[in-house]
Every structure is written in structure tokens, then in C-alpha cells.
């Protein structure tokens, strides 16, 4: 009975905010991948991924976000990450992806910047 990935959502004027929670590793990233595909395919102008409730992410989670970023670009959607916890920020730094993603410090900033 493995716990599935919890994702809270909020519609905003120009798109969506997703707030996954838990640890995004090989066990959880397939669910995130499917969900992000659906969200990008709905063609929002902006997709904010609030990572404040994600305490851990490995490279399978990062790969999922890179895929979503590339899909977003093709779809003309602006994908913004926000509120990365230090451990999660560190895997983006190690992977040299911290300058590839648009990363905001707060949800408000990510919604409105």
C-alpha cells in the first residue's frame, strides 16, 4: 500500500500552481511526470511548481522537471519553480540546473513576476 504522491493545486489568473509533497525519488517521479504532462498539455500560460513541501528529490525527480521544462517551452508555457528547500536546491546546483530553470523564492513572486 505505497503512499501516492500528494499534489495540491490552485488555479491562478494566468495558469496553475502545483504543490507536490513528500520525497520525489524513483518511486514517486513517474506520478509527477504523468501529472506534469497533463498540466502542460492543458496549455496554461504559467505553471508554478511550489516545492516547499518537498523535503528530498533525486535525479529522477530532476529529470521529470527538465522534461516538463522542455515540454513547456514547446507549448509556450512559462514554468517557474519556487520555494526549494536547501537539500533540493543543492541537487539543482550539483546538476548545474539552477540557472536553467526560473526559480522564485516565494509563491507570490512566482505567480506575479
Amino acid at each position, binding site marked *: 500500500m505505497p503512499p501516492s504522491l500528494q499534489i495540491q493545486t490552485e488555479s491562478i489568473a494566468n495558469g496553475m500552481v502545483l504543490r507536490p509533497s513528500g520525497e520525489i*525519488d524513483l*518511486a514517486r517521479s513517474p506520478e509527477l511526470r504523468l501529472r506534469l504532462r497533463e498540466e502542460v498539455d492543458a496549455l496554461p500560460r504559467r505553471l508554478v511548481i511550489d516545492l516547499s513541501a518537498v523535503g528530498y528529490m533525486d*535525479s529522477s525527480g530532476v*529529470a521529470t522537471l527538465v522534461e516538463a521544462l522542455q515540454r513547456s517551452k514547446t507549448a509556450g508555457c512559462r514554468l517557474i519553480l519556487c520555494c526549494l528547500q536547501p537539500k533540493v536546491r*543543492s*541537487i539543482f546546483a550539483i*546538476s548545474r540546473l539552477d*540557472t536553467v530553470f526560473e526559480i522564485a523564492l516565494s509563491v507570490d513572486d512566482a505567480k506575479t513576476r
Partner: protein
Amino acid sequence: MTESALELRFLSHAENLASVRACVDRFAASVGFDEERRGRIVLAVDEAITNSIRHGYGSRTDGPITLRLAELDGGGVRIELEDEGKQVDPGNLTPRDLSDVRPGGLGIHIIRSTFQNCRWVRKQDTGMAVTLELPLTSSLKDLPRRAP
């Protein structure tokens, strides 16, 4: 097996990763690593196991994996990972160019930039044996902001 050492055996089911990480984290703490370095060790071990699951076993969930945690002579951690999956030429396990942004291909880079010594060996019959060592005295490798 020295006295302060642990061996974990589990199948290649990703659901097992979280419990294994918790054990690795606590073991690294007991050996004396601070929180930042424990975070790196846990991540790198997760990447190595994820590789066994995905590449060694082609994402089959029933392949046996063994992880051994031991204290290095002189302080630090020595981690051995064994699977019975598909083998890979250790010479091909070099990190890719990170400036080419694409999904995947980060695991080897993370493992190599975390541990001071990394060794991949093809086992006698089938499967890989990975040995990862980090002395307590070594500093985290430099992480330049951009690939050269």
C-alpha cells in the same frame, strides 16, 4: 564485517529507497558526517541504487540488491552496492556534459562528485559491484557553477 557496520538486502523495488536512505543517513551521522555531507552521501547512494534498478534490472522490481555500510579506517564511510543485473563497461561510466540540458544522465556525475573513490566492477557471473568511499577528512568536491 567490522562491528559497527550494516548490511541491507532488498529487492529492486523503488518503494524500498526511502527506508534505505534513512538508514544511510543515520549511519553517516554515527560515523561523524555533518548534515550537508550526509545529504550528499544519501543522494549519491540513492542514485547508485536507482541505476541498479533501472539499468541493472531494467526496472524489474524483483532483483536482489545488497548494500553494505562500513566505517573507513581513519574515519569516514565505505559503501558497497551489489546487484545481479545487466553489466556495464565501467569505462563507459563517465559523467556527461552537463551544459547539454536534457532529462537524465545525472546519476554518475552526482556519485563521482560526492565520493572521493568510486569503483564499478563487473562481478564474476552477473551484476555489478560498486564501491564508494568518503573519508571524513576530505572536503566536498568543488562545484563550479557551469560546466567547462
